[in-house]
């Protein structure tokens, strides 16, 4: 069973009596360990799709199963717990809390999963180490550069060991060099076995992921999947000259 299974998912909005079909029958599987991008121009519905995949929103129609849990039937309380335990978010505008320091920002998800005291601190420091920011733990977000802030956000997304990380235009607010560094970080995290989905409008960013799903007018318009070509879903990493850990369910 795939990590994410969505079947015929629709999302409709009503605007002044007019029905807007933000998503119109999307069917999609994401396996554990995949590195993929969801790509589409603005207004295509990719953000709506990410919100549904990220359990911030529920579909009007269709079914969504994440890690064996039926999301379209879950209560808001269960959705919050799933967001906390199984999903990590990285946003375009970093969305760190300015009043908290770096360490406290990374600790935040664990506050809501009742991880206490020393354990919380140690796990937050470990996550910061993963993004090479353990020496900035006492800084405020405003004292960091954009790239560093985004790395803090990535540490926060990873700290609860989520099943899948969604990154919504993670480089959209960064210059190209820092953006490339962030994408490298994602690639590295992917080789360590994490499931990562980039949401972007930029084909050049999407090109770093082996699998690309194009959304247009609320539908999947085109899909590039290495598995369809008989290749490993980790194909993209071969070009980066790194080892190929066997993808889950494939070996």
């Amino acid at each position, binding site marked *: 069973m795939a990590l994410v299974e969505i079947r015929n998912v629709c999302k409709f909005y009503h605007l002044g009596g007019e029905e807007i079909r933000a998503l119109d029958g999307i069917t999609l599987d994401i396996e554990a360990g995949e590195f993929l991008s969801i790509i589409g121009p603005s207004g295509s519905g990719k953000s709506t799709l990410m*919100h549904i995949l*990220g359990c*911030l*929103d529920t579909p009007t129609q269709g079914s969504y199963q994440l890690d064996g849990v039926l999301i379209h039937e879950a209560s*808001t*309380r269960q959705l*919050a*717990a799933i*967001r*906390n*335990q199984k999903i990590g*978010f990285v*946003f375009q505008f970093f*969305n*760190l*809390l300015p*009043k908290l320091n770096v360490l406290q920002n990374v600790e*935040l*998800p664990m*506050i*809501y*999963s*009742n991880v*206490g005291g020393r354990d919380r601190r140690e796990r937050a420091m470990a996550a910061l180490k993963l993004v090479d920011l353990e020496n900035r733990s006492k800084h405020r977000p405003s004292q960091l550069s954009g790239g560093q802030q985004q790395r803090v956000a990535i540490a*926060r997304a990873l700290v*609860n060991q989520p099943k899948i990380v969604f990154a919504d235009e993670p480089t959209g607010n960064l210059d190209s060099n820092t953006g490339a560094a962030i994408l490298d970080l994602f690639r590295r995290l992917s080789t360590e076995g994490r499931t990562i989905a980039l949401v972007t409008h930029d084909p050049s960013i999407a090109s770093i992921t082996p699998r690309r799903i194009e959304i247009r007018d609320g539908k999947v318009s085109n899909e590039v999947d290495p598995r369809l070509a008989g290749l490993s879903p980790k194909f993209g990493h071969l070009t980066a000259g790194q080892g190929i850990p066997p993808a889950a369910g494939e070996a």
Partner: protein
Amino acid sequence: MNFGDAIIVGIKEIWAHKFRSLLTMLGIILGVSSLVAMSALVKGMENGLKEALIAIGGLEKVRVEDQDIPAYQAHMADQAVGSTVNDIYALQQNAPLIRMITPDMRLNRGYMTKGNKVFSPWVLTGTTPDAIEMNQHVVAYGRMFNQVDDDRASAVCVIGSAARDELFGSPEDVGKEIIPIGELVNINGQPFTIIGMFQRYESEQERKVREAEKDKPRDLTGPRRSRGWSGGGGSFVYRLKNSTVYIPLNTMWIRFRSASGANNIPDPRLSGLNMKVNGIEELEPALQQVRNVLMVTHKGIEDFSFRTQEDWAEQITAAIHNSRLSGGIIAAISLIVGGIGIMNIMLASITERIREIGIRKAIGATNWSVFIQIIVESTVIALIGGLAGLVTSVGFVQLLVVISPTDNTPVITVPALFLAFLFSGLVGVLAGLIPALKAARLDPIESLRYE
């Protein structure tokens, strides 16, 4: 999110906006301190009134007074004997529920003179030695007259401190305490020897004021003036009690009553009887016993009535209840105003923090934990304000005393402090309710987009 984390987050949020939080707390501080001050004032009043009630003899004291003969007995009016000393003997024998009984034979328009000074006592009465216990007097100097003095109808008197103040000079005027024991004074032209003097009765507050002013030099310019009899609250009772003069019953009878009634006919009637009941719970049967006895000695004519202190005690209770209620309402209103202030700030702060709430929800905060966070925040503000209010209230009470001195010292009680603190917490929770609901209901996607 556990409770400890919520409190820490709340305190951090308050600390991040120190000035704003202080202003918000101000309402609660004022509300709590006015609640405490109100209850302190009422408690002081209650203490003063209770002191005064005890000073006039306590609840167990009952007075038998003359009353107009009822209409159906009007034809027997010339048979009515009134209260006499016979009633005393009869009651002592036949009313076991009465612990003590003293006669009260007053000299109306009595005056005492010493040299060219005149003093008109409030009560100049002939009685038995028991009167000292009956009316809760304390002899400070000399002695009370005894049974021998009464039997011999000696011309002796025991005076309250006001008589001394008028005839010999008060300690404040003279600068030292004059003890007039053994001095001769005239009562309505007849010489009496002062054999005892009562202590000076005053409320706690009066004592404090007097002691505070003791060391100050007195302003001796200008003529002295009498301030009259009236006075507020408890102090009136003490002034009356200080202006008591007792002489033995037989002395009163022989010297002033045996030839001074209407048409110079001897008048043996008492002005009243004072009785003490064994216990306040036996008041009803005791009064019934007294009635039975008096109906015999008064030849079946109901020309007497009872005066108990129940009315006064009830008035005290009612007055305290009323002031507690009105004070409580005023203080509650200011606490509510403080709560509205908190609510207002919390609503503003939530609008400011929509994005933060969106982020928290995206990373897994449930609606409930957002709700709790806001409630805890407003409660912490209110509790800190409440705590500060408790501290302020002490100064507030002092300030009130300075601005408007009362006869009664305000007393801050521990239950009042607890109650005020509890209320501030309650106001905090209630004030946080609407903002917390609003925050909990925010849509995470909309909040994340909010600029």
